[in-house]
């Protein structure tokens, strides 16, 4: 059985009011074919979890700037002035989280943990409204799991069964998001037959992946 689908099939998978995770660090490791397709749909009231807001003129950043999004959970929006403006004019709710904490929160969801204790952000606004737990005299912020309905991730190679290998610095948030969503859609540059992928170097197992879309 192959998990490869045409990008147009995603019309039936994405719904209004869902939570979407999008992998990538700026442009790198972002599922551009899928994002370009999402930019043609008319989804409403979304929540998006993403490392950064990207650039407003393409794929991820365009989606964040233009789609009907209620809330973005992210570590950085400085590269996308359109998102900044939407925040300033209260059209969108932005929850800013330190990048390492965001990574752990996503991982916690996939790992079945109730959260992790991080020293990052103690004494700053990142600690506001958070539970503080002391261990051996040190204060930590309890960072609780963040999951999503759908994760849109990008890998380099897959086999038909959905095993993934990433390339260079395009890993970033993709492997952890692959574990943290109910439905995981991976865009890949190359789909190999089962048995043709280097199985010692698979980073995301096929058990996590629901659909594969080939990059255009």
């Amino acid at each position, binding site marked *: 059985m192959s998990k490869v689908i045409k990008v147009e099939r995603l019309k039936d998978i994405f719904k209004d009011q869902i939570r979407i995770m999008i992998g990538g*660090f*700026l*442009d*790198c*490791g972002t599922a551009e074919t899928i994002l370009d397709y999402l930019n043609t749909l008319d989804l409403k009231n979304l929540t998006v979890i993403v*490392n*950064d807001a990207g650039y407003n003129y393409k794929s991820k950043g365009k989606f964040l700037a233009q789609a009907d999004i209620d809330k973005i959970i*992210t*570590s*950085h*929006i*400085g*590269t996308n002035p359109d998102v*900044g403006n939407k*925040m300033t004019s209260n059209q969108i709710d*932005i929850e*800013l989280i*330190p*990048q*390492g*904490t965001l*990574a*752990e929160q996503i*991982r916690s969801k996939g790992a079945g943990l109730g959260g992790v204790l*991080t*020293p*990052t*952000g*103690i*004494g*700053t*606004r*990142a600690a506001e409204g958070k539970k503080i737990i002391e261990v051996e005299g040190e204060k930590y912020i309890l960072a609780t799991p963040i999951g999503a309905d759908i994760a849109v991730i990008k890998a*380099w190679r897959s086999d038909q069964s959905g095993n993934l290998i*990433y*390339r*260079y*610095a*395009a*890993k*970033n*948030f*993709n*492997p*952890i998001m692959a574990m943290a969503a109910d439905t995981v859609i991976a865009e890949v540059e190359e789909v190999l037959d089962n048995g043709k992928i280097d199985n010692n170097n698979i*980073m995301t197992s096929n058990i996590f992946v629901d659909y594969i879309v080939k990059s255009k």
Partner: protein
Amino acid sequence: MSDIKNKIAKRIAEEIADGDVVNLGIGIPTLVCDFIPEDVEVNIHSENGLVGLDREAKEGFEDKDIINASGRYATIKNTGSFFDSAMSFNIIRGGHLDMTVLGGLQVDEKGNIANWMIPNKLVPGMGGAMDLTVGAKKVICAIIHQTKKGKSKIKSECNLPLTAKGEVDLIVTELAVMEVKKEGLFLTEIAKETTLEEVIKKTEAKLIVSDNLKRF
């Protein structure tokens, strides 16, 4: 202006020891690379998921999957490696970086640093800065001594939202080198182009002048 920035970067380069693992922030910190002596091997970590970062890629030799944390196409040494964002921040938060160099909007005599937002004006997000300041063994703030309006950025107490509380170890400006200690801010070096009086006048923080004040 670029003279000033280069002076700061050059002085910071002297802090790097052979074999150090270092993360350099955007702006002045990036310039530090240019001043590291040939016989000092430094292993540069980039929070988007690589270590062993080398120079930016030459035009025509860009690889879409090798970028630095500023989103610019980069290259990697033959001993470099790549990892996901969870691992990248394990390296940062877990104390595996010998040093991080960050820019700042303000820094103060208690080692507090503010570099991620100006309320109601600039809210890019903290990205990886909160993790870097908490996690690296040595935190160096690379900062221009005064604002364009002539106000000291070396404060007695930061009034912008903090990036980290009490984590800065060393402050380097174009005029001065200051060590953060329990007793306060030690002025250890002043620039060749300035006087002790000028430095004290331009510094809001209380300075404890070293008995062995050096020039740089």
